[in-house]
């Protein structure tokens, strides 16, 4: 799996690019079946309907206390952190593949989101955020009158 070797930031190091390349190649070959995965971060799916949109994400082990969803106009920002496993110094880490740490995702919609009616649920590691559109921004049919 991906072997991360830390190179101190700030110092120029010819190895940094090599280390990054090694990491990229490791990731490339370690996830052969996951398609269209967003680079470095949880994967989101976006759903649409007449009344607005819905965002779902695979976020197993999410720390709900640190989850922050904010809506400003047509922009939704989801900020979160996955629960970190604490272990003693004697523990040998044999494999570490699961993503950890913070993530942020900002999504822009073609309508203003009604923040008062928006809802979020978390179940079995799946986050679902329902984002209804403001009434004014909903699709309207214009009747055509014959002269």
């Amino acid at each position, binding site marked *: 799996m991906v072997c991360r070797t830390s190179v101190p930031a700030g110092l120029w190091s010819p190895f940094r690019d090599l280390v990054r390349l090694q990491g990229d190649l490791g990731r490339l070959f370690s996830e052969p079946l996951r398609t*269209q995965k967003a680079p470095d971060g949880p994967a989101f799916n976006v*759903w649409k309907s007449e009344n607005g949109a819905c965002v779902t994400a695979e976020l197993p082990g999410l720390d709900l206390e640190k989850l922050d969803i904010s809506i400003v106009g047509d922009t939704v920002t989801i900020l979160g952190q996955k629960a970190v496993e604490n272990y003693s110094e004697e523990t040998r880490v*044999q494999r570490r*593949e*699961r993503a950890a740490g913070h993530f942020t995702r900002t999504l822009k919609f073609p309508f203003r989101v009604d923040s008062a009616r928006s809802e979020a649920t978390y179940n079995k*590691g799946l986050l679902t955020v329902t984002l209804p559109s403001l009434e004014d921004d909903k699709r309207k049919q214009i009747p055509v009158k014959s002269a």
Partner: protein
Amino acid sequence: MSQQTANCCKPRQEATPATTNAGETTPSPKVFVPQVDILESENQILLLADLPGVDQENLDISLEKNVLTLKGTVKPHGPEGYQLAYAEYEVGNFERAFTVSNDIDRSGIEAVVKDGVLRLTLPKAKHAVSQKIAVKTA
């Protein structure tokens, strides 16, 4: 406990040909390899696996000879009344196999699933826990 068997990553194939039995065959769902952390301490090995969409009812853990297999079945999920507009992940089942050494106390294996994360505790057998040998002066 660190080796992964090579044949676990392939998408599941339909076992029976379409000509047998009546009715149409359902397309087999995609199978993904879950990402895991393996932490080994003095007395146990802790395996953490990301299995979004899996709860204890549709998770199958089996230990056959020395191969530990995790199989998580995920029902197609998605908000009702919505159409998928943009996708970064696909819904599918999870499957992964590990080779377990003989030093594991098989009767003491415990599994807990919470928030789509499996915590599998594999205690080491008594004889496998390293013992300090006191050196006496002659």
